[in-house]
């Protein structure tokens, strides 16, 4: 996939195709969806195998399950308050779905479903619609005072209210594009430098030094990708919590 005729095919890795032969083809089940099933399965597997022993002093897997639980639970209660417990399963599902989506994507020959804007946008729309619905249900028409922060001079309102509305709407873009762009950029860089290794290595002994350098860059990038994978999942979950806090408390 690396070098086909002209230059480097950095985008080929994002090409969707169906898996599962005729059955998968008939229901348009893509490799992205297979990775989603893996990510969801991994999340559930950790909880299932982690809580099987129910030990008072937890083993490694149980500690992982419990730490995951308390980590997200604390995030919800810290950011949202007591009401955050209602949204805890959603934030948990979002965090681990995205986290494992990102992490599985680093695996060679795997696919990163978070590198598709359609997927990240769908998750963002879910969060955005939920926060708006929660805010409207809890506060009714008072929700719209959210766009007019208190303590601001009336003269500034004509300027401020459109900005606030715009920033509220732009959450849809910022949340989805942040995750999407981070994953795409990282995988493109990996692909480019991976292709460099192959092309320079094949071009003769003279080019082995830059090929080695490209390999070193790829090694560093992989480490960086792990960081980004975890960080972006965390950012997505945290911003979800912050938006939910705004929805519950308005300011």
């Amino acid at each position, binding site marked *: 996939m690396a070098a086909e005729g002209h230059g480097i095919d950095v985008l080929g890795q994002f090409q*969707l195709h169906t898996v599962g032969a005729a059955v998968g083809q008939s229901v348009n089940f893509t490799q992205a969806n297979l990775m989603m099933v893996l990510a*969801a399965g991994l999340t559930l597997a950790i909880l299932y195998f982690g809580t099987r022993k129910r030990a*008072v002093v937890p083993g490694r897997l149980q500690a992982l399950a*419990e730490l995951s639980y308390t980590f997200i639970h604390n995030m919800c209660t810290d950011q949202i308050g007591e009401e955050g417990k209602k949204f805890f399963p959603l934030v948990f599902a979002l965090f681990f779905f995205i986290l494992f989506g990102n992490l599985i994507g680093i695996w060679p020959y795997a696919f990163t479903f978070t590198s598709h804007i359609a997927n990240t946008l769908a998750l963002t729309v879910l969060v955005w619609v939920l926060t708006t619905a929660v805010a409207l249900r809890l506060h009714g028409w008072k929700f719209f005072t959210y766009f007019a922060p208190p303590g601001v001079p009336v003269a500034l309102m004509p300027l401020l209210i459109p900005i606030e509305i715009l920033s509220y709407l732009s959450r849809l873009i910022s949340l989805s594009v942040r995750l999407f762009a981070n994953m795409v950029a990282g995988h493109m860089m990996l692909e480019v430098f991976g292709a460099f290794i192959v*092309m320079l290595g094949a071009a003769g002994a003279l080019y082995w030094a830059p090929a080695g350098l490209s390999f070193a860059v790829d090694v560093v990038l992989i480490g960086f990708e792990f960081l980004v994978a975890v960080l972006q999942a965390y950012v997505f979950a945290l911003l979800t919590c912050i938006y939910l806090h705004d929805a519950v408390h308005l300011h």
Partner: protein
Amino acid sequence: MRRIAVAAVTLLALPTAALAEGMPQLDFKNPLTTSQVVWLVFIFSVLYVLLSRWGLPKVADVLEARAVSIAQDLDAAHQAKAASDVAVAASNEATRVAHAEAQAEISASVARAKAAAAAQAAELNARLEAQLAAAEERIGAARASALGALRQVATETADVVITRLTGRVPGRGLVDQAVGAALAARGQG
């Protein structure tokens, strides 16, 4: 060689190249781009339901059980501590009482012993006094009898000495008088 040059240019012009070639992510003519979202909604919904109904309550159960067991252990420890505190207080009190009793017993014994010793000493003193008095009486008697005998011995000795020296028997009255004067002079008359 040319390929490498092209690759370098591709890297530099990555954003434009990406847009020019058309990202698969933005290819909405491909039905898979939208169909994967349908699957996403389905898979994520299943994940959410399973997590909220089954997975997370299980973890909550484990955490709850641990919290309960820790609370029970702490409770038991507190109760044990309270019991031990009571026992320590009782033992301290018992020690204190025993100490006081022993002290009182010791004082009483000492007092009794002192009284007994004093009584014994007084009795001994009295007996010694009596013996002393009796002894003095006996000494006095012995002395009186000795003094009586002395006068007689002195008188007879004087009679004999004078008889031997002078050849005649002195007058009874004279000798008696002289002996009496001599004894009186020595303070033994």
